[in-house]
């Protein structure tokens, strides 16, 4: 190893570091990426001799400055985001002093840790090729630093590292399956503190003029047993109680629980939740309990995780599709869910009082209101007009256009105006079965809002006014139910079935990846071992099995590596000489292994007089390059030799034909 970093390894390591930074480009502050880009540029220019690298004092200064900048902007260096930013800028600082192979190794290590940090944060299947490419680049850089052949050929560097990585797969897989996992975390994962699209704590249907149809997956579900029918798949999320005439909010949470009786048999299912940044967990009505996650359950059936959902999360849930309240609604609960702001939405309040007075009971009243939504000329749309300050009045008497949030809001307001306790439940409705893996996919576009009304004797009962306005919404999902969306369907989702199939396959693969690889935990490890008939093996047994498997792998590896005899690699000059000998043999000149260049030349000149001059010069040039103390990698000399050889070959071509002809005659 020379003391200066050669061109190719340096280029590779620059590329690996740059790729590592690209993985973090949307998660670290912009200035970090700018610093990294500047450092790469500076280093490159310095390598080309255009500028000088900073001296030690300046370098230490820059490193301190960058470190304090990270500290100031994050107020910590713990946590994933701050750690990533620190890595990016420290890598940049390292670049400014990367001159030796040792520095190169450090840079490769930084690149690999950048991949790790990215992998800790995002584990999507789509990102895997990026992680893989960056890792490979870093390992190829290590190869280019580590041996002379790779130092001169990027292809060889990639091949060498790729082959080694390939041989490593079996052992890595073995370790993955057999290394005992911790039942819990060693220390708490710092919150990433970012909020992603999902359901929010409040709902102001009047303020939205266009609901974007996000096709992102909200969660995927596996049912243990027959799945409930689509119209029963109401996934509860935040429950909203507090209405100010325009916006629904969650409101106060200290309300006694109402007793309930679970009627139908338990329904078991497994939810794989995509990160959404808040704590909500989604469950089917009526929820009994969760497994595999720490959670709180609220009086209104809302379920929240103890921690923010910043990474893919999964849990087992048990629900009962049929249940009823056996207790009485408390006074606090009744007050909370019948409260309406004074003097707001006067026309709808009047309508409600009117309809209630015509009804026999609360149940009858609810029926009438549902009828009203069905016959009132309401239309479902994802692009409703903006609503007035008194949003319920505006919807019911002016626009009559809206989506689930509009109708749920208006329905609940009508209930409360007549003194019937009602609350708005937000969540998701539906879910489509993926034919590839049988999981049900629930998307952001399945977000929904409905109403629960307290009916004496029955308890909380679900009503979905959207369902009567647009029955297709419940059958086929929001995107299909909307006329506007239907018009765009060709471009948006693609009616083409092969496209849908492709998407199903991709999502199933992503689900498998998430479930089986990223979330491979102790429980799944135990399950897998059980599947192999090794349920009683225990941790020690696993380690022993791992040792045995590792030994077997090592034997196979040794056999594989020994199978190939050491191949003698010759330099370019020798290869040209051997080509010369091959030409001579083809032209009928006898060449023995022990013949020296002088003897061969004499014989060739005698037998191939037409090329005698070229042969003489070729041999003289070869001997000068080989023995004359010249540079064996002298490219010009080599090119001359090759040209001379081509000349010899051309001048004696007729001889080959004649010989072939002779052979034919014989």
């Amino acid at each position, binding site marked *: *190893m020379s003391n200066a970093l050669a061109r190719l390894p340096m280029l590779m390591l620059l590329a690996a570091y740059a790729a590592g930074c690209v993985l973090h480009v949307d998660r670290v502050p912009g200035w970090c990426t700018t610093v990294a880009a500047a450092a790469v540029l500076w280093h490159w220019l310095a390598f080309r001799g255009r500028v000088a690298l900073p001296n030690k004092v300046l370098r230490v200064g820059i490193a301190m400055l960058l470190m304090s900048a990270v500290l100031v902007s994050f107020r910590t260096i713990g946590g994933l985001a701050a750690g990533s930013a620190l890595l990016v800028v420290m890598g940049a600082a390292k670049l400014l002093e990367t001159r030796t*192979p*040792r520095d190169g*190794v450090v840079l490769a*290590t930084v690149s*690999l*840790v950048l*991949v*790790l940090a990215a*992998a*800790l944060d995002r*584990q999507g299947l789509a990102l895997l090729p990026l*992680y893989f490419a960056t890792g490979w680049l870093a*390992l190829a850089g*290590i*190869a280019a*630093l*580590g*041996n*002379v*052949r790779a130092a001169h050929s990027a292809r060889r560097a990639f091949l*060498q*590292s790729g082959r*080694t990585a390939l*041989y*490593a*797969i079996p*052992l*890595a897989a073995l*370790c*993955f399956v057999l*290394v005992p*996992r*911790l039942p819990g*975390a*060693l*220390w708490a*994962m710092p919150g990433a503190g970012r909020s992603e699209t999902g359901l929010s704590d409040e709902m102001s249907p009047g303020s939205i003029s266009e609901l974007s149809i996000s096709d992102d997956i909200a969660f995927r579900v596996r049912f243990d047993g027959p799945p409930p029918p689509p119209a029963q798949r109401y996934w509860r999320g935040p429950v909203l109680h507090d209405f100010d005439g325009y916006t629904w909010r969650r409101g106060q949470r200290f309300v006694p629980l109402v007793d309930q009786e679970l009627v139908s048999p338990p329904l078991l299912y497994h939810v794989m939740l995509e990160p959404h940044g808040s704590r909500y967990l989604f469950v089917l009505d009526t929820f009994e309990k969760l497994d595999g996650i720490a959670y709180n359950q609220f009086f209104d059936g809302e379920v929240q995780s103890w921690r923010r959902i910043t990474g893919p999360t999964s849990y087992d849930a048990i629900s009962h599709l049929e249940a009823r309240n056996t207790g009485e609604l408390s006074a606090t609960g009744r007050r909370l869910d019948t409260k309406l702001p004074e003097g707001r939405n006067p026309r709808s309040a009047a309508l409600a009082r009117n309809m209630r007075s015509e009804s026999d009971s609360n149940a009858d009243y609810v029926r009438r209101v549902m009828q009203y939504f069905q016959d009132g000329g309401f239309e479902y749309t994802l692009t409703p007009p903006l609503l007035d300050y008194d949003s319920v009045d505006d919807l019911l008497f002016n626009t009559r256009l809206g989506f689930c949030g509009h109708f749920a809001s208006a329905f609940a307001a009508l209930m409360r105006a007549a003194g019937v306790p009602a609350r708005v439940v937000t969540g998701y409705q539906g879910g489509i079965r993926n034919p590839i893996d049988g999981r049900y996919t629930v998307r952001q576009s399945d977000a929904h809002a409905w109403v629960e009304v307290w009916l004496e004797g029955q308890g909380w009962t679900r009503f979905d006014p959207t369902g009567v306005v647009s029955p297709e919404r419940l059958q086929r999902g929001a995107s299909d139910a909307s006329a506007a969306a239907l018009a765009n369907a060709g471009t948006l989702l693609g009616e083409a079935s092969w496209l849908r199939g492709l998407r199903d396959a991709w999502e199933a693969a992503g689900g498998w990846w998430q479930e089986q*690889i*990223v*979330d*491979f935990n102790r429980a799944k490890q135990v399950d897998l071992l059980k599947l192999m008939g090794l349920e009683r093996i225990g941790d020690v047994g696993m380690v022993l099995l791992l040792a045995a498997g590792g030994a077997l792998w*090592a034997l196979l*590896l040794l056999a594989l*590596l*020994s199978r190939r005899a*050491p191949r003698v*690699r*010759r*330099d370019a000059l*020798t290869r040209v000489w051997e080509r010369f000998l091959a030409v001579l043999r083809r032209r009928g000149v006898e060449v023995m292994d022990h013949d020296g260049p*002088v003897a061969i*030349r*004499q014989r060739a000149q005698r037998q191939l007089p037409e090329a005698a001059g070229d042969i003489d010069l070729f*041999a003289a040039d070869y*001997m000068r390059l080989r023995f*004359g*103390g010249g540079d*064996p*990698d002298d490219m010009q000399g080599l090119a001359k030799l090759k040209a001379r050889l081509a000349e010899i070959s051309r001048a004696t071509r007729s001889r080959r034909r004649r010989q072939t002809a002779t052979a034919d005659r014989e």
Partner: protein
Amino acid sequence: MMRIFRSGKPRQPVLRGWALRRQGQDALPLTLKARRVYILPTPAGWTFALLIGVIFIAGMNYGNGLALLFAFWLAAFACVAMVQTQRGLAGTALAMASSQPVFAGETATWRFDIRGRTALGDLRLDLDRDPPSPSTATDSPVTTEGSLQLRQPVPRRGRIRLPVMRISSSAPFGLFRTWTWVNLDASVLVYPKPAGDLHVPEAPGHDTGSTRIEHGMDELAWLRDFREGDSPRQIAWKAYARGAPLLVREYRGAAARRREFDFDALTGLDTEQRLSQLTRWIVDAAARGESWVLRLPGSEPLEGIGNEHRDDCLARLALYGSKEPGR
């Protein structure tokens, strides 16, 4: 017995002693068996191990399968790299080890003919001492067959043994360094250091009777057969291209005179100083093309002319006082 040149202490003395006792004396041609090839991580390898450790702990703690898979893969990668590094050295064949005679105080250049799996540029020979004296490839560094040169400083005259040397390699990834010690029975003849400024003694009597025709200082005097170690610049390439064997040009200078160099005549000097003075005279006489006779106590006088005669005399001076007879 001549003492082996020592400067600095061998590294890893305990392991080295154990290994050398275990494998004994080596003889050429030598194939390095796997059982004598040792391997340890390099500093870069330790850095890599630390990296794997960090990734493993992070993956374990966060229950992140992807990070764990990454850690296991890198660890397995390091394992394969270790095997590859070791296989790169095991099986390497050492065919020849030789060095031209040198003068004391100079540096002997050993040439080793090597053939193996690892490119010459990745193999390193050194004397396993501080300061290190790394080898250089004389052939193209990417070939796996060719010769490596190793320089060994030799301060004293005599037949100097090649010390225990170390062959090592960290190819292909630089994460591990594999090495073995080789204890070859090879030696280099070290002439006394030419020194002293006494007047060159003239032999009494007649001229040498050389029959060669002499011209000016730079005139070509004759061509002789190529010998190992001759400078490529001296080779008569034109003659070679015409079909002659490899020949070396020799030059002759002033008229040959006969000199007499007598060890016993050098009174007032100690043995080593006398040998140095004799060496100086012989070297100068040979360069001037003179003939001379060398008289050493306890041996026949050597008389002659030319480089061969010079080498004979120098060898005798180198080995003066040792049990081994001169050439």
